[in-house]
């Protein structure tokens, strides 16, 4: 098996075997969506209007919380030392880990969206729109979040710091994700423009994320 393929397979295997696997992220996503009506009231019209926003916020928080362990586990058991000494560039290894994380944690959120859309009284079109934007945007969340994960790798309660560092950087993804969803649902403004920008943000994060994360990990090894 190729080196990167081995790394992705290993990370997915571990993600699926440990701590409830992919389901725990989906469960958190569900919980956040369920919390919303308690906060804003069960007015269906309001919930539908807020639907895309609620789903996006839930997905954002769910992916943020699972990013905490992206590098910490490898750092703690000494695997990171060996990964740095491998013949694969660290940037590619980081990208592979992020990809594995998205497959194991981000993609399930996208798949769960239709079900959650029901709770918010979103119709099929709206739910598909939101799911599509999440499909294009959750990679950006993962690849941006990996920077915070790498910076906070040696801190035991790094989860909060990670969130504080990563959330401002995730705002553009949130804006365009919700904008694209709303455009598809309510019609007048184009879906294409914000959606393309969303895809562009993901692509940019595929480059910046691994480089920044690799640099942080190298500097944090002492």
């Amino acid at each position, binding site marked *: 098996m190729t080196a990167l393929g081995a790394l992705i397979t290993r990370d997915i295997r571990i993600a699926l075997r440990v701590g409830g696997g992919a389901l725990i992220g989906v469960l958190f996503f569900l919980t956040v969506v369920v919390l919303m009506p308690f906060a804003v009231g069960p007015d269906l019209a309001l919930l539908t209007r807020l639907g895309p926003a609620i789903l996006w916020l839930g997905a954002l928080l769910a992916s943020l919380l699972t990013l905490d362990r992206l590098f910490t586990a490898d750092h703690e058991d000494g695997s990171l030392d060996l990964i740095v000494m491998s013949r694969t560039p660290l940037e590619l290894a980081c990208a592979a880990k992020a990809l594995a994380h998205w497959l194991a944690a981000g993609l399930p959120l996208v798949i769960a969206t239709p079900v959650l859309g029901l709770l918010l009284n979103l119709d099929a079109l709206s739910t598909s729109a939101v799911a599509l934007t999440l499909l294009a945007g959750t990679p950006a969340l993962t690849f941006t979040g990996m*920077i915070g994960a790498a910076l906070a790798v040696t801190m035991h309660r790094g989860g909060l*710091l990670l969130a504080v560092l990563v959330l*401002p*950087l995730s705002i*553009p993804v949130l804006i365009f994700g919700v*904008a694209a969803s709303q455009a598809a649902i309510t019609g007048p403004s184009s879906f294409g423009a914000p959606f393309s920008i969303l895809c562009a943000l993901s692509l940019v994060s595929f480059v910046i994320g691994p480089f920044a994360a690799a640099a*942080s990990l190298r*500097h944090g090894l002492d």
Partner: protein
Amino acid sequence: MTLIDLANPTRFLALTARILPWLAAITAILLAIGLYQSAVAPDDYQQGATVKIMFIHVPNAWLSMFVWGVMSLAALGTLVWRHPLADVAAKAAAPIGAAFTFLALVTGSLWGRPMWGTYWEWDARLTSVLILFLMYLGLIALWRAVEDPSRAARAAAILTLVGAINLPIIKFSVDWWNTLHQPASVMRMGGPALDRAFLIPLLVMAVAFSLLFLTLHLAAMRNEILRRRVRALQLIQVAQASQRRA
């Protein structure tokens, strides 16, 4: 056992000890001139006297971004050349930048109150500044979260550079978001092209605040260098004590 390399920081301390009083004096004079000019500038026909908050708000907003730029340069110094003064410069600049950003937010809010009727409206420009403020706070949190000073400097440097790349993206996104949710605002903060009568006091204040940053930054860098020396001395003390015991 050695202390940190003293060559450059020592020269830096000596140099700044000489120029800092002059710098502070010039800053004070310029600020005084700027404030006077702001006070006597004519009232805006729409906004009245409150437009004068602009003379503090706008320079602070410029500085909040300028300081991030300074930190980005320092970040390059840390990562590429591993220059010890770069670490110090970056660490000293962050709280000052945060303070300027906070001032920009407060003055922006006060300026907006008469126009909006509320202390906060999610206006595109101020919202971008608010996000910048959050990023400053996150950066300061990162500085404080990492024990080892050189590791903290490197981590902060990476975050600073990532933040610098993201700032235009964030600004663009917030502008987009704002136009989506609000019709074209009637009263934009920047206003139409500034009257000459406003331009000169604004520039004077901008220069004055920049000098204020420079003064504060150099003073903060001196403090940070001295703080690191104290830490190095303490480490030597500990090492000597354990050697004596061994």
